[in-house]
């Protein structure tokens, strides 16, 4: 059988019920009883109910939800710090739920680095000895593990602190140690349970940036737990939203924000600044038509504009988008009998890549010349254009579900 790009982690119909006799609660749950009902009738707590999702190699998946929604339970079911009640967890196609204790230990050593909300460092060990812990457990020789640990310490910017003990460090630095401890392992998966939630906002932002930088180099598969949507949007290639142990929506940040599955999701989305989330690509008008400086004269450009129903057109020369001409100027140039676009070419234009946040576009569109912004790919090929009116109407559209949500809540 040919092996195509396989998912790194596959979670199938995962349930976790806390209590001495989970089968009864499981049956009730499958019949559709709610978490609260089950708690009331059987005194069993539902941690996770019927969770299914996949994580692709090299991606950051953020699991988001309010406190108590089952995020920690879910992530701990992946490396079996908590044993699932039913369901499967596959890592590289291997079913983690079927491993015996010894296999599980080796599996954890090989695949999982974990970072905790409260850091969970070993208070009696120095920074370096904390970082080398995972390798020490694997029986790696002192020299080799010290070297790897030192490298991880440097990676997180703690060089010079390796002989300190955790108590002497600030929260941010302690979590760097936590991060280094997980990195030193060279495991392919990182499980991060609210890793930055205990840090104050400025430090948190630094850590997020650093994680993204590191991730660029390492390409690990990361499952990141967060209760903060801004963090989820920033870090997550994809986001899973949980409520009462159930996954209520999964998708990219944009999918979730522009189309919240229900009011619960919408309530999360509410306080996010939409312009930060929407990208140039999502507010542009698709258009690939350009005029060519070398071959197109004013009349040709005019015809292209008329066909596409636009009033200005970007101009390309030697594989680069070099400027713009307007229909008005084209007409004047044609009347004057000019054969090229050189005289009327306006060279001050704004070009952006498709992934820039929409909030940066306002300033570009606010220019007195009122030209649209060009959205181009890395080869300067035009992908689309953004005009003020379009941007405003797209924003209004995405605000809509939120307005509906709060309106119905008032009834």
């Amino acid at each position: 059988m040919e092996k195509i790009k396989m998912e790194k982690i596959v979670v199938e119909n995962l349930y976790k019920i806390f209590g001495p006799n989970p089968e009864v609660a499981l049956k009730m749950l499958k019949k559709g009883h709610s978490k609260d009902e089950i708690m009331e009738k059987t005194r069993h707590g539902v941690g996770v109910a019927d969770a299914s999702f996949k994580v692709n190699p090299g991606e950051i998946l953020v699991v988001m939800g309010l406190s108590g929604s089952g995020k920690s339970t879910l992530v701990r079911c992946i490396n079996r710090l908590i044993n699932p009640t039913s369901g499967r967890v596959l890592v590289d196609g291997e079913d983690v739920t079927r491993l015996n204790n010894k296999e599980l230990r080796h599996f954890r050593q090989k695949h999982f680095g974990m970072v905790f909300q409260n850091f969970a460092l070993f208070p009696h060990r120095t920074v370096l000895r904390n970082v080398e812990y995972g390798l020490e457990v694997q029986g790696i020789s002192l020299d080799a593990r010290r070297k790897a640990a030192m490298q991880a310490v440097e990676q997180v910017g703690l060089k010079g602190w390796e002989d300190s003990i955790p108590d002497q460090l600030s929260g941010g630095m302690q979590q760097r140690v936590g991060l280094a401890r997980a990195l030193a392992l060279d495991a392919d998966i990182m499980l991060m349970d609210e890793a930055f939630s205990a840090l104050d906002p400025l430090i948190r932002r630094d850590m997020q940036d650093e994680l993204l930088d590191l991730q660029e180099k390492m390409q690990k598969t990361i499952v990141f737990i967060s209760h903060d949507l801004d963090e989820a949007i920033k870090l997550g290639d994809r986001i899973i939203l949980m409520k009462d142990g159930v996954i209520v929506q999964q998708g990219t940040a944009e999918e979730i924000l522009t189309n919240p599955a229900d009011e619960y999701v919408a309530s999360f989305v509410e306080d996010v600044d939409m312009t930060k989330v929407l990208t140039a690509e999502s507010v542009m008008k698709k258009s690939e038509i350009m005029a060519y400086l070398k071959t197109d004269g004013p009349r040709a450009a005019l015809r292209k504009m008329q066909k596409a129903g636009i009033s200005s057109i970007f101009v390309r020369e030697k594989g680069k988008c070099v400027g713009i001409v307007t229909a008005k100027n084209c007409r004047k140039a044609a009347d004057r009998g000019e054969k090229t676009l050189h005289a009327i070419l306006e060279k001050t234009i704004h070009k952006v890549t498709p992934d820039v946040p929409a909030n940066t576009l306002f300033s570009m569109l606010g220019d007195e010349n009122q030209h649209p912004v060009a959205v181009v790919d890395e080869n300067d090929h035009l992908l689309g254009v953004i005009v003020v009116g379009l941007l405003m109407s797209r924003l209004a559209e995405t605000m809509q579900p939120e307005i509906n949500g709060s309106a119905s809540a008032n009834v």
Partner: protein
Amino acid sequence: MMQFPETIDIPLDVWVDAAMDWVLITFSGFFDLLGQIILYFMIYIEKFFVWLPWPVLVIGVGLFAWRVTGRWWSGLLMGAMLFFIGALGLWKLGMMTLSLVVASVLISLIIGIPLGIAMASSDRFEAVLKPILDGMQTMPSFVYLIPALMLFGLGKVPALFATIIYAVPPVIRLTNVGIREVSPSVIEAAHAFGSSYWQILFKAQLPLARPTIMVGINQTTMMALAMVVISSMIGAKGLGLEVLLAINRIEVGRGFEAGLCIVFMAIVIDRITFALATKKKQ
């Protein structure tokens, strides 16, 4: 007042005696052998302490106390107290007492720490052991003299046995508490990195429980010292016997001297083990 009916009389004493007889007969070989081994071990320890030149011990303890407490005058005081024991002419008896304390503490730790570890890793074992330890600690200390006497006869061995029984509960209890007090999130992290039971025990639980276990060792040592005096009743030679003889003969001065030496010894041992327990690890 109403008399309790004499017809109701549970013969618990008879049963215990019968059980004890049975144990003695069935396991006499075992206890003889055990007694021999312990005796051998104790004689060596005693020989060592009696052989140890007094200035070495006085100066050594003084320096050590200085180091662990961090105060030079504390070291000086500890050394002076030991010197005083010698100055009263009780050095040899003091060393005999000390050797019995050391031997019983060592054995208490060998028994107590593993029991404490087992207690920490099994809730059921804890539930069984806890009431037994409570019972052991509330029982008057000289009660242990009787079975010790019956099992091993008179001498050092039963004294050691009774001392261990009396002194071992704190170290068991505090090893258990110390391990259970280790933050669950640290243990979780250790699990997450694939540690085995023993790795978690030796790399996380025991090092983190160390200060609590040291407090247990301190208490065990103090209790052993107290018991050593009482166990002189069944033939342990040393300062305790000196006190006992003084009481029997109503020689107040002699009893006071020996008593004072025991107090000094207690202070020295307590200060040093306490300092070890609370000392910050660098």
